[in-house]
């Protein structure tokens, strides 16, 4: 069974009396362990798709099955639980809590999952070490470089061992060298079996993925394997 299955998913927005079709009956299946890039110009609906996949938003019609659960019918609190358990987010602007150090930032999803303090710390340290920040745990975001911050964010996304990692323009705020490092890290995670989505509008970034889905006007314009991606 597929990890992700979208069936005729639509998302409409009402804006000033006008109905906007952000997504039009999209159907999509993604298997466990895939590395997918979602591409498209702004306004194409890729952000909407990403929000739906991340359970931040619900679809207007259609069904979304994630890891065997039909999430299109869940309420706010259940969605929060699903996000906590199944999804790790990596944002363009990192979105770390500014007053908390790296360790506490990474611990946050575990707190919401109700993991006791001792285990929490151990798991968080493991996650930070795995992204190469074992020596930066007590640093606050403003004491770290952009690349380091994004690594903390990736550690935070990983820490709950989610089913999918959603990275929204993960290199958008980084110089190209640091961006490459982040993409290497993501590929490394993919190699270890994580399912990863990268939303981007840069071909260079998308090239790292093994499957590229192009969105245009709320429809999947193209969905193809990327031969140049990691084998």
């Amino acid at each position: 069974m597929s990890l992700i299955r979208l069936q005729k998913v639509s998302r409409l927005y009402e804006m000033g009396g006008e109905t906007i079709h952000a997504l039009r009956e999209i159907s999509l299946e993604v298997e466990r362990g895939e590395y997918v890039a979602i591409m498209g110009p702004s306004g194409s609906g890729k952000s909407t798709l990403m929000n739906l996949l991340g359970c931040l938003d619900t679809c207007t019609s259609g069904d979304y099955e994630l890891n065997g659960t039909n999430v299109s019918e869940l309420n706010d609190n259940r969605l929060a639980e699903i996000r906590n358990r199944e999804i790790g987010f990596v944002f363009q602007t990192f979105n770390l809590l500014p007053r908390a150090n790296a360790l506490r930032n990474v611990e946050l999803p575990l707190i919401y999952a109700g993991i006791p303090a001792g285990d929490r710390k151990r798991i968080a340290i493991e996650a930070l070490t795995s992204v190469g920040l074992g020596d930066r745990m007590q640093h606050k975001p403003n004491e770290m470089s952009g690349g380091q911050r994004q690594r903390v964010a990736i550690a935070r996304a990983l820490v709950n061992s989610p089913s999918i990692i959603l990275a929204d323009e993960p290199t958008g705020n980084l110089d190209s060298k640091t961006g490459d490092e982040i993409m290497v890290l993501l590929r490394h995670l993919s190699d270890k079996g994580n399912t990863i989505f990268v939303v981007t509008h840069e071909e260079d970034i998308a090239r790292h993925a093994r499957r590229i889905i192009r969105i245009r006007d709320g429809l999947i314009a193209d969905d193809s394997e990327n031969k140049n991606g990691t084998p």
Partner: protein
Amino acid sequence: MRILLEFKESLLIAWDAVRANKMRSVLTTLGIIIGIVTVTSMATAVDALNRAFHDSISVLGADVLFVSKMDWQINSEAQWIAENHRPDVTLEQVHRVEKQMLMASAIAPAVGSQRPVSYKNRRAGRVQIIGTTDQFLTTSGFNIAVGRFMTASEVEGGRPVCVIGNDVATNLFQSESPLHKKIKIAERQLEVIGVLEKRGSFLGMESFDNEVILPVSQFVFSYWRHPTFEIQVKVRNIEHLDDAKEELRGLVRKIRHVLPADPDNFAINQQEQFIATFDKVTGTIAAVGLLITGMSLFVGGIGIMNIMFVSVAERTREIGVRKAIGAKRRTILLQFLIEAASICMLGGLAGLGITYALTLLVAGAFPYFPIKMSMPVMGLALLMSILTGVISGFLPAWRAARMNPVDALRNE
């Protein structure tokens, strides 16, 4: 377990937020501080007034009944006129009560008048002169500091002896002992045989120690031929106070020849009545006072609500991140409620500290006013400040909890 974890996390976040916005937190807290200071000051003042009254009134003794012509509490001029026309309570009536009352451990007449008292060239004006018997020591609960009280035979014989209050002793006798000295009241010499223990004053104003006690026959002979007496009856067992009161009422009615159909032509007073009336007055003061001072707390609460709305708006993105990571509505709600409650609790603590200092100041300035902060007032004030935080924080917290994560994350 999970809710506890979230609670702890929320406390940490709240503390972070308070520390991150020190100036703002202080200013916001100021409203709560002022509110708590006014409320607790009011409560403490009323409490002290109560205590002062109860301390003072307790000298009357809870187990003593006071029979007199008139009620202690006169509510109207008509009542005063009516009661003033009642026949006097005579010494003869007192003697009959003494003989016939069964449920009393001591019975004493008491009659008073204010006179100047002198010794050699020293003089004390307006001293309370009390004519009574040896039983008065029991009914009044007075204690002797030096010397002794009057004996039954001295009272019987109307000997020219007296027992003086502490103030009289210190006013008339500077360095010498008052014992066996002869003081003069209205041209009559009385030998001092004892001095009473100091008893303090009523609400810090009227002293209880400014008195001279002498045998009732001496008093009647020398100072007031036909006074109306008060009969002080100390009940044998305070648990049977009501029964004793009924016995006394029946007895006095019989002695004063009150017809069965007629109402009492005397009053049986007790400490309780005094307290009841006083409590009604202080109850009203407290209610009105707390209402008015409570307004300042209310205003403080509005300040908290305002700043919490700002705090929620400022941290929209943070709320979005937290929600994306898995915070539920409940978690976000709790976070902001605890933040508001923490600010208010800090304000409450600061307010209590200020009130405490004020209390010490007042206590230092007015040593006779028994003002002190009570545990219930402190506990209640703290509870009220936390409650203010929770109530005024609720709307902002609710707004935060209901935020849509997509919109919140998009917020710049």
